[in-house]
């Protein structure tokens, strides 16, 4: 077609009847269904697609797969903008908007290409050597400019409107790689009875077979295999899916891309966690480039990639091609190019060539230079000529395409990710996977079986063995074979050293000179080489550069390849979008929220909700004030003067039952519970093993063998786990069952001088008189057919009752209390007022029970007396925990009118230098409407006496306020308000 000047008139695995429009740097272009972005760009004659990382050198499309180091583009706009995607892996979709990267103002005229002129000064380690001074902080200044000058694409900053999902999947046999080995393995495993998942990163199965000439035996074989596999119900064909990580337990991380999916409302990317019984690695091999001067010019491509573009996409990337190679396999590229109409020259480093190859070349009119290599290339934005050198002669050949092949490197990334080092095989001059773990198998090029026939056979065997590993042993028909007349792969190691600007790592702009420099400066280990030069640290993770680099270092060191070794392979194999990992866990789905049974009432009644852990709790009610500061003070007044109603459903609740329940409680609480009478509640404190306070709460004895424990909201799960742990390990002899019943009960606190009247009106069938229900007493009954428990407890210091009712009746009970309480002045209050009320009363909570305080620090030591034998008892007696200088709980009152105390303020004695940790800190603070002043709780060193004045300094607020040390109980120290 006319808009695709480099498209061949026929052939290819593309749909010529389905044109697709896309844009590249604003230019409207057309491709075909079945194209990748790279093939469509080449078809349109676009050879310059990017700029290099450091030197901003012009770069073109180098490969046809995931190994692409050069052709990185940014896809999409706005929130969909995704940078650094290899054009070779993007399936062309209608309306695609693509931009090149790392250039300004344009791709063809990039101002920063001036960096190339300063290349001698920008060698490896340049930054570390140059930007070290004049001060230690100078780097922070330089970094900004360096990052702007060197880089990749920019991610979007707007919210991404597309869907991303995470799935779980299972298979008996997972096969990674959908080439001939993988297809054959899937067929064998499925026929053996296994559920097989065949994972292929391309949108077509077939691997290198899709690059064979149309109409070849490969096409027929591929079609037969695909048809058979699609007909098998136990085969899951996963195209467009890359296995990015291998994890313990034969777990694979897979990413599926659907760049056309936003139209259909489907997930654009899906991260699948695949748990397999066995894994067959059929990941193939990646062709190695050759290293010579200016080998990064647009128009230089891997030989196998050119063959892919010619045969699969019907694109002729150049009309005058030089094929530079070390092996027989890439001659097929020369033959296919010639058959497609290109003028071809082969430069083979080997002095002796197979007669059959020479004969075919002669037949196709291909010029052959034996024992020759490319010494240099001429051209800027595209290749113009290659200078061939060999046997003492030099020749310049005009060309617009250079195909290179330095052999093949098995794709060992995935198999090595769990720490299995690849091993070197001399005869193929390549690393193959190290010993496979049980249940893992390899097939095809990844294990060095490069020919299609070998791949099919080893894939077949691996499929049978993998299925057998999973216990599936049905008879399997013989492998489907076919002849492809491929030459065998033989190692060739006499590659001459490159001179000039010869790139080893295209993406990170690492040259042979950089490797030599690293060697001279002592960075000779491949791991040091990597970090010093940034080799292999690009988004392509050095897929094409790894072997050439370690070969170069081996030569410099005079060491062998296996002595030099490889760097460590880690997930992901290809870059993964954070969105794919997050899936739907974004926005309000980032984490689940817990709602109390009264949640809807709070919302309808104007509560501002607060996240407390996962719980949603009423922070304050808008009826009480315009903001939290106004509202909580008003809500405190309701409680102190009439009555307040608080949703306390979030408290942890644990049912403790059994003949030895009291014994368990005696062991886990620092204070005793064995003698607690039935129908009574007690405040209790638990310690950690190290004697530090763990949590507090109340426990009510419902019967001789049954208790109802409450914990703080924050520690509910921790306390439950601790009880189960202790029962299983420390006291397995006890006949006790502990069960979390937190969600079982709606809970609400009615607090205030008129609380008893309200309860009596709400639950007239229950006797809630002081005699029947004294402080720390308990009664039970029914409400609306659900269990009802009322425990008289006070957190606020007022007469108060905790009402527990079956969760399904929670809102009804709440409404009843609100309704009958209104005439008595009952109003709901939120957690801010709750916290303030407890500060006035001097009750400790999370800010004081902070994992550092002891019973004595918190003034609770008297609860324990001479008891012993409880958890934490031994280590709480450590001398350091009894030192008089330890910080202990005190109260503070603000002495300065118009000022306020701040939580977190550091406390200093008057006149002390305000540095360091001071004498203590304010843990909780509130305005007390009763006292008309700001008061707070603090942990303060023992050498500061009651009545002393301190200065509360909040460094970040630049605030210093005088306060007096007082008792932490600001209100009703005798407890008269809560009794009676």
């Amino acid at each position, binding site marked *: 077609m006319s808009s695709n000047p480099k498209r061949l008139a026929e052939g290819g695995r593309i749909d010529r009847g389905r044109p697709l429009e896309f844009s590249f740097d604003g230019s409207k272009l057309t491709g075909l269904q079945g194209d990748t972005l790279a093939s469509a760009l080449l078809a349109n004659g676009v050879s310059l697609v990017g700029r290099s990382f450091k030197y901003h050198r012009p770069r073109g499309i180098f490969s046809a797969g995931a190994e692409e180091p050069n052709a990185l583009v940014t896809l999409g706009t706005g929130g969909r903008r995704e940078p650094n995607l290899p054009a070779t892996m993007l399936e062309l979709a209608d309306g695609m908007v693509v931009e090149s990267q790392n250039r300004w103002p344009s791709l063809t005229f990039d101002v920063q290409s001036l960096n190339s002129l300063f290349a001698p000064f920008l060698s490896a380690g340049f930054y570390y050597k140059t930007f070290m001074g004049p001060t230690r902080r100078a780097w922070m200044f330089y970094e900004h400019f360096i990052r702007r000058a060197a880089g990749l694409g920019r991610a979007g900053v707007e919210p991404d409107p597309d*869907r991303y*999902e*995470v*799935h*779980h*999947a*299972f298979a008996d046999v997972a096969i990674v790689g959908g080439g001939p080995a993988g297809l054959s393995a899937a067929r064998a495993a499925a026929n053996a009875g296994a*559920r097989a998942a065949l994972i292929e990163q391309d949108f077509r199965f077939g691997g290198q077979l899709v690059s064979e000439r149309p109409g070849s035996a490969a096409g027929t074989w591929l079609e037969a295999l695909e048809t058979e596999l699609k007909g098998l119900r136990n085969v899951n064909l996963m195209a467009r899916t890359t296995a990015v990580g291998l994890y313990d337990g034969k777990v694979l991380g897979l990413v599926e891309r659907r760049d056309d999916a936003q139209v259909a*409302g*489907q*997930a654009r990317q899906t991260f699948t*966690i695949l*748990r397999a019984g066995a894994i067959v690695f059929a990941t193939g091999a990646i062709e190695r480039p050759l290293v010579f001067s200016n080998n990064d010019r647009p128009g230089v491509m891997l030989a196998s990639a050119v063959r892919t573009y010619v045969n699969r996409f019907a694109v002729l990337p150049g009309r005058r091609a030089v094929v530079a190679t070390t092996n027989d396999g890439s001659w097929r590229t020369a033959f296919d190019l010639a058959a497609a109409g290109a003028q071809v020259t082969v430069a083979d480093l080997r002095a002796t060539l197979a007669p059959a190859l020479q004969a075919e070349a002669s037949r196709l009119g291909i010029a052959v230079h034996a024992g020759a290599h490319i010494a240099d290339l001429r051209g800027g934005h595209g290749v113009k000529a290659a200078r061939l050198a060999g046997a003492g002669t030099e020749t310049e050949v005009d060309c617009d395409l250079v195909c290179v092949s330095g052999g093949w490197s098995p794709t060992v990334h995935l198999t090595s990710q769990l720490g299995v080092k690849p091993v070197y095989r001399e005869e193929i001059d390549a690393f193959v996977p190290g010993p496979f773990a049980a249940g893992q198998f390899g097939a095809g090029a990844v294990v060095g079986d490069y020919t299609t026939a070998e791949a099919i056979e080893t894939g077949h065997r691996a499929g049978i063995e993998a299925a057998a590993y999973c216990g599936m042993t049905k008879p399997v028909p013989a492998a489907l074979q076919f002849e492809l007349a491929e030459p065998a792969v033989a190692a060739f190691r006499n590659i001459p050293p490159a001179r000039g600007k010869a790139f080893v790592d295209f993406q990170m702009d690492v040259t042979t000179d950089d490797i030599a420099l690293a060697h001279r400066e002592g960075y000779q280990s491949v791991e040091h080489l990597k970090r010093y030069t940034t080799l292999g640290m690009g988004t392509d993770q050095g897929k094409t550069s790894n072997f050439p680099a370690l070969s170069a270092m081996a030569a410099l060191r005079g060491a062998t390849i296996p002595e030099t070794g490889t760097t460590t392979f880690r997930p992901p194999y290809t870059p993964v979008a954070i969105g794919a990992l997050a*899936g*739907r*866990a974004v926005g*309000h*789905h980032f*984490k*689940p*929220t*817990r*709602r*109390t*049974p009264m949640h809807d009432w709070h919302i309808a009644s104007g509560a501002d909700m607060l996240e407390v852990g996962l*719980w949603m709790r009423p922070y304050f009610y808008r009826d009480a004030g315009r903001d939290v500061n106004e509202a909580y003070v008003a809500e405190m007044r309701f409680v102190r003067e009439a009555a307040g109603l608080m949703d306390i*459903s979030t408290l942890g609740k644990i*049912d403790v*039952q*059994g*003949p030895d329940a009291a014994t368990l409680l005696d062991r886990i609480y620092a204070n005793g519970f064995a003698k607690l009478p039935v129908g009574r509640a007690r405040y209790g404190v638990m310690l950690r093993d190290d004697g530090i306070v763990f949590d507090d709460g109340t426990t009510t004895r419902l019967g001789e*063998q*049954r208790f109802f424990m409450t914990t703080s909201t924050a520690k509910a799960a921790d306390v439950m786990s601790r009880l189960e742990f202790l029962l299983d390990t420390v006291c*397995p002899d006890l*006949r006790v*069952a502990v*069960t979390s*019943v*937190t*969600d*079982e*009960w709606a809970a609400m606190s009615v607090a205030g001088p008129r609380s008893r009247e309200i309860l009596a009106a709400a639950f007239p069938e229950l006797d809630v008189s002081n005699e029947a229900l004294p402080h720390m007493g308990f009664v039970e009954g029914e409400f609306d057919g*659900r269990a009802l428990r009322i425990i008289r407890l006070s957190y606020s210091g007022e007469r108060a009752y905790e009402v527990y009712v*079956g*969760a*399904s009746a929670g809102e009804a009970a709440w409404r009843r209390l609100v309704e009958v309480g209104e005439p008595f002045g009952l109003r709901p209050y939120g957690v801010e007022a709750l916290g303030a009320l407890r500060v006035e009363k001097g009750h400790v909570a999370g800010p004081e029970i902070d994992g550092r305080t002891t019973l004595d620090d918190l003034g609770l030591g008297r609860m324990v007396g001479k008891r012993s034998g409880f958890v934490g008892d031994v280590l709480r007696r450590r001398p350091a925990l009894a030192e008089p200088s330890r910080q202990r709980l005190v109260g503070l009152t603000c002495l300065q009118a118009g000022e306020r105390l701040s939580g977190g303020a550091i406390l200093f004695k008057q006149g002390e230098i305000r540095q360091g940790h001071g004498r203590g800190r304010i843990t909780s603070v509130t305005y007390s409407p009763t006292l008309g002043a700001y008061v707070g709780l603090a942990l303060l060193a023992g050498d500061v006496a009651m009545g002393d004045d301190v200065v509360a300094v909040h460094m970040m607020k630049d605030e210093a306020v005088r306060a007096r040390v007082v008792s932490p109980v600001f209100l009703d120290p005798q407890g008269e308000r809560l009794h009676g």
Partner: protein
Amino acid sequence: MAETVSVEACTILQVEGWPETQAACESELSRQLGAALPADFGEAAAVGGWFAVRIAPRRFWLIADDGSKPNWSIDPALGCSVSLGEGRMRLKLRGPHTFDVLKACVAIDWDSPQARPGSALQTGFHHVPVLLLRTGAEACDIFAPRSFAQSLVDWLADIGVSRDIQDETISRPA
């Protein structure tokens, strides 16, 4: 047929035997229910009008539709029981894409024998501990803590969007 997600209350009674009396407790409960309880941890079985799940080595959940009352009792010397029905909601999923939806929620192999219809499985769902009861080839119930139920329903509805089940019926937990 469209997928549906409905939320219902249910009755759950937890029974646990003491370490030394577990066998006797099980035997006595089986006698009262008129059928054997599941023998192994993770197994489930219909027992005397209840659905019994061995949720832990010494612990059973007896599940029934909401409102069912137990007509049996446990001798405190053998074990104990506690009602959990108020604290759990039963999310019922029905429809041909039920397990496609669940694949985005829980790491369970729905094609394995352990997940056949009638089986009960405990796992984490969006960080929440749940019990899954596979009630049919295209149906599954999720027993979730009441406080988390709305979050899980929201999650299911969101997952359902990309599976062409936008018209599911979702009722909010009571």
